[in-house]
């Protein structure tokens, strides 16, 4: 039963990704202009244009071009960048790692922090600490991510204090994690965007669990409060929160775009913005697919966690 549901979700995800790839590929067919001319420039001779068109497979039927593009994605061949003239995979190589560093660090900070603050809020329900936390999360949840980032930059790197660098400036070829101080602001910004939802969900489920019969029972038995919270309440509150966490982590896949642009962080998001500005179709296609794939995979994990932790499904089986 559970295995079947997971397999079904998996298949649905694969189908969704295929449909997304259709969307991404055929949307770019609407583009006016000739990709071969975009690469060679206005001065290109007709013979060279024809040769490149043949080489890029532009004369093939649309469905064949789609299939070869899709096939290329699986072997890491993302096509040729019109802006650099080089292969897209070369352009993306280091950037994927750099973006993942940003996302993982943000997740590692935001998830435990969100759970802690949410639990604290629930335990001090209705008191000062809870009101402060609720207010702060409500404000943070409303702000667009670049606004949070700019506020942090004015606070910590330009106007109020000048403690941290506001842009990432690793020399080419060097890895971003060799400069930890440059990672602080982008990571903190992302964490501040993601954490509020986790805090609010954690608070809501924790309050529900604390009011439940088995927590009252544990307290009546004389179990120490600390143990009531850690052993009885927290594990039961975590299951619904796991889904929200996964949704937030999936959000990170798209959220890095603005943050990387703001901090000039050499990741996929920055590359995507540059490519859109240059109308560099192959790069836009490749990065959109990568981000969509990441998004779908994390969502799939969220669903699987949801299925595994849902006691109703377990007993139905």
């Amino acid at each position, binding site marked *: 039963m559970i295995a079947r549901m997971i397999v079904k*979700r998996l298949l*649905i995800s694969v189908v*969704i*990704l295929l*449909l997304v790839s259709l*969307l*991404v590929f055929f949307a*770019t067919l*609407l*583009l006016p202009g000739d990709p071969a001319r975009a690469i060679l420039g206005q001065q290109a001779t007709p013979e060279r244009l024809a040769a490149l068109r043949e080489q890029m497979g532009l004369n093939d039927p649309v469905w064949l071009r789609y299939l070869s593009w899709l096939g290329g994605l699986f072997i890491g061949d993302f096509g040729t960048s019109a802006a650099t003239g080089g292969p897209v995979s070369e352009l993306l190589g280091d950037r994927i790692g750099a973006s993942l560093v940003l996302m993982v660090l943000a997740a590692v900070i935001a998830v435990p922090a969100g759970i802690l603050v949410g639990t604290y809020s629930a335990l001090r329900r209705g008191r000062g600490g809870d009101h402060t936390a609720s207010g702060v999360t*409500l404000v943070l949840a*409303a*702000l*667009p*991510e*670049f*606004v949070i980032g*700019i506020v942090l*930059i*004015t606070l910590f790197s*330009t*106007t109020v204090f000048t403690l941290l660098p*506001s842009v990432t400036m690793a020399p080419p070829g060097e890895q971003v994690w060799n400069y930890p101080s440059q990672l602080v602001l982008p990571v903190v910004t992302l964490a501040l965007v993601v954490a509020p*939802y986790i805090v*609010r*969900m954690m608070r*809501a*489920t924790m309050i*529900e669990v604390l009011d439940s019969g088995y927590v009252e029972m544990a307290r009546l038995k004389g179990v120490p409060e600390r143990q009531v919270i850690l052993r009885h309440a927290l594990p039961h509150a975590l299951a*619904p929160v796991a*889904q*929200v966490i*996964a*949704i*937030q982590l*999936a*959000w990170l896949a*798209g*959220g890095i*775009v*603005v943050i990387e*642009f703001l901090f000039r962080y050499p990741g996929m998001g920055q590359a*995507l*913005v540059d*490519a*859109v500005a240059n*109308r560099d*179709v192959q790069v*836009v296609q490749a*990065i*959109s697919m990568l*981000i*969509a794939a990441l*998004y779908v995979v994390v*969502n*799939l994990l*969220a*669903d699987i966690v*949801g299925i595994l932790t*849902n006691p109703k499904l377990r007993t139905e089986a």
Partner: protein
Amino acid sequence: MSTNPAPTGPHTAGSPGPAGPASSAAATPALTEGQASRPPGMLRRVIAQPQARIGAVLAGIVVLLALAGPLLLPWATGYSSTDFAGRPFQPDGVLGTDNLGRDVLSRFLDGGTRLLLYAALATLLGLVLGTVLGMLAAYRGGRIDSVIMRGNDVLLAIPQLVFALLAITVLGPQGWVLVTVIGVTHAPRIARVARAATASVINEDYIKAAQMYAVPQWKILFSEVLPNITGPLMVELGLRMTYSIGAVASLSFLGLGMQPPTADWGLMINENRIALVLQPWGVILPVIAIALLTVGINLIADSLARASATLNVEDKE
């Protein structure tokens, strides 16, 4: 009552994006309960909450500023400077001039109208599309339901911003493209809410009565179903408006929304952030305006969610 966003539902494959701040604990019951008594009671409940009043004041100030700003221009303009960044409170403009020697105050006054207009139109488009699709899916069920909801899943598999960037690559950064693409990416999220809300009312007697009288289907949807699902839709409307403002501002900030020399808050932040140390006003003013606007609207949305939740709690008793 569960605060769990129902991982068992048939359509959770894409998961509802970043879980809205207000959609967590408070909004969920509103979707499952029939809305017995509404607007007058609901409105009073919303106004009764201090945070709704704070939100209305914050958002109201910025909306007024954005709408009346262009009218104030005759008193503010006329300043320009050949300096890179004029100093505030000097003859060259009250708040100095920006990177091209343009008066910061005038650009700020003129920069909010389009942001607000685009965000409102995008939200409205998303609301109309989403509500119609959601109601249709729930009411017709069967094949139409699964086609609509699978289509939703595909759209939800691409992060909103990436989808917008893809559209802008193809169609160019124009106003109608921004409005359409943000509206279309909102639609599946609103459709889910509308579908869930509709599903909870379609078995009511008044719907059955209308069906027996052979009222045409569209009339049932618009005069029987729609008035009874406004509660959850209003909450969703507030949330989506927050996200629309964030999305339009973010795209302009990336340089892919409004194009220079348009005066726009998002674009202003992008243009002036290189001179953040010399001339902070060009960044700080629009950042504050966007922050107040989104926080204000989010506060209103949150109290709407609370109001419809308390409404249902009292219904049950």
